């Protein structure tokens, strides 16, 4: 883990940034973060995936957010959310090809400010689960900083990092594509998904996360800190 990330994930950093937060982000920080010593089965997680117009949070924008809550190590499908977000700029052709989201689809959608106001209360007090989390944290953090005065600090489990640790432990050479969400789901005997969008990828990551926890401790008694990124 890099020093920068260590600092960003620290309590000290959280206390520092939350003072500058405004609006819904302030309310987010008012709810304390999950204690890293809690057994995972008592922690609530939110698996989240974003679709964006590119990979650079400074230039590119979020076009959709999918999320699902995990409680007591059960994925709760009733909590599923799938939000389209209206970008400030017109959608580029390449991102339309990737996500199949068109300008007309997002015309009626809320802009990112409103979308954040909707999801921040869901994120509060929970732990983020994402496959390759720097993307999600980068985009959400950038947007928070821009609209609500402070970055987003959130305890995070990165299923890709957990998979990487598993592979390192097994000491096997890594095959190309071994860390892709689909491949990892397959190795854990999870069903394939035909549809790809923010919500289905969030659900896919939630299933993988459960499998990774079950592999470490079927009873779910291990502490949260052992799976945080």
């Amino acid at each position, binding site marked *: 883990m890099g020093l920068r990330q260590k600092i960003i994930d620290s309590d000290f950093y959280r206390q520092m940034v939350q003072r500058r937060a405004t609006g819904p982000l302030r309310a987010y920080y008012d709810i304390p973060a999950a204690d890293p010593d809690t057994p995972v089965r008592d922690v609530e997680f939110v698996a989240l995936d974003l679709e964006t117009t590119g990979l650079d949070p400074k230039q590119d924008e979020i076009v959709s957010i999918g999320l699902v809550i995990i409680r007591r190590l059960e*994925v709760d*499908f009733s909590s599923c959310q*799938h939000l389209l977000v209206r970008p400030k700029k017109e959608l580029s052709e390449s991102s339309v090809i990737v996500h199949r989201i068109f300008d007309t689809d997002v015309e009626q959608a809320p802009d990112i400010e409103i979308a954040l106001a909707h999801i921040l209360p869901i994120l509060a007090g929970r732990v983020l689960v994402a496959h390759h989390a720097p993307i999600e944290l980068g985009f959400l953090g950038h947007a928070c900083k821009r609209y609500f005065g402070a970055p987003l600090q959130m305890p995070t489990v990165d299923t890709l990092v957990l998979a990487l640790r598993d592979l390192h432990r097994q000491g096997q050479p890594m095959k190309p594509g071994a860390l892709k969400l689909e491949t990892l789901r397959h190795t854990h005997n999870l069903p394939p998904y035909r*549809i790809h969008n923010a919500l289905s990828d969030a659900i896919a990551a939630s299933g993988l996360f459960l*499998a990774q926890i079950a592999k470490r401790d079927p009873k779910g008694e291990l502490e949260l800190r052992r799976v945080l990124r």
Partner: protein
Amino acid sequence: MSLELKEISDFLKQHHPFDLLPDDVIEALPKRLTARYFRKGTKVLSPEQQCLHLHIIRTGGTETRDPDGQLLARLGEGECFGVRAMFRNGKAANNITMLEDSLVYLLPEKDFHDLAGKYPQFNYFFEQMGGARLRSGMQLLEKRDDDQLKLMSIRVSDLIARDLVSIDIGASILEAGKLMSSERVSCLLITQNGDEVAGIMTDRDLRNRVVAEARSFDEPVTNIMTPNPISIGPDDYAFDALLTMTRNNVRHLPVMKDGKAIGVITTNNLLARQSLSAVHMVGRIRKMTRPADMAKVIAQIPELLSNLIEAGATSRNAGHIVTTLSDAATSRLLQLAEEKFGPPPVPYVWMAGGSQGRQEQTALSDQDNCLILDDAYDPEQHGDYFKSLADFVCDGLDTVGYIYCPGEMMAKTDEWRQPVRVWQQYFNKWIEQPEPKALMLCSVWFDLRVIHGTRSIFEDLHRMIVTKAKGNRIFLAYMVGNALTHHVPLGFFKNFVMIRGGEHDRTLDMKHNGVVPIVDIARIHALANGIDVVNTYERLEAAMAFPSISKQGASDLLDAFEFISITRLKHQVRQIRDGDRPDNFLHPESLSAFERTHLKDAFSVIKNLQAALESAFGKSGT
């Protein structure tokens, strides 16, 4: 509904009994679910543990064992566990252990009962699973009660076939009998004051209470009728009617509406609803005079088979029922032949061999049969008669749909239409001087069963065969050698060894590599121990009493036989549905992971018992 959850509802739609729910209900269902993940080996439930969800297996598989550790079921994708807990106030009844890493969907108890309350078919499926005692894993796995489901959806009023036939309470037995005869009904309602039901009278009453008691026909019907009969309402389900009849041991039920009788339903009405019922088909064949007409009935066998399998029949049941039909066609053809060529000049008996002999026919059958004639047979005098008879029947069977035996093992062939003394010589030679070519014949001619004619002709011959074969070690060793030539398609690491190349590339031959080896093993144990039955299940059941096979071995082999046979039948049924010609070649990918595991288990059982066979009887000659 969002597209992503459609993935889950689509999955549910593919599985019974969720497929019985209306689309809008099933599409709303994913939102009610949660998902859990279990590692292989995790014990998910144990008896009396709290279980507040119906568990639906999304991927992976489980094993159910009762509190004593007895295996009850193995479940795979799309199947449910925790069912009994739903009917026991959220207390699990059995031990559930994961056999594989599994993703499981959980439906809350309350939602389960909401669905069960609203959709009787859905409820019925689970009540059967949860309420009935689970006998074996396989039975649960195959459990389907579509027939009952059909009966559940038909109302009694739909079953009333004709207008009510009734007679006034003042009538005599004679008058009642005459009315029944002229109206061609098997029961009569006795009414008073117009349409008030006073009693019911059936043809059984005429037999038991009139003829058997030598009662005068002039007595009033009231003396023999059953007063105040049990009745049923027009809006009740056909299923309830069947239950009422079974419970009260009656075959007729008056249908009452607002205190008045509107009709009678009989067990026949209920059976007629299953228009393809085998009994009905047999009845039709017995009335037919032309093979071409019989062919139309026999052509329905695939459909019959597919209904049977769907209704949860075992392959043993299915084989028995399907064979009953070829027996019926054979007997009918023999009757017709005797009408055509006159009565037989000397007694004869018509025997079925092979799968018909063993009562193990499937959708695919050719004919194996022979004629055994009384020793009074004289070829000069009687040869033509029996030649004509055999040609008539074999050609008839071919027209009906049982194609000629490729090995010509038919009564049509001169060699297989012989008097008892010749047959004795044949069997003597096969048993005392076994040779590879003769062994092929043994698989057909050691599985003989009487179909028609003078049974006693066969009985003496049969006694001789059983006694002779029993004591002959060399013969048995030859049979073993032959049986071991059928290899089970399992490799060293328990992977399937499939056919390579050709028309059946990458398939398993379920007949020659699955069914035949078991049939062979059962035959050897039967012959070695003087067991005279020919059905493979019966042979193995009988063999358990002898030391040549262990009780456990025989019982494992019975399970393996049932599983392989039913898998083969299901494969054939699937082909029939897709409009293909049924065959024995199965692609393992068409099975679920769980079925594949089970199939491998079944093959390794065969492998083990083939090895045991070799050590019990030795191997020689090949």
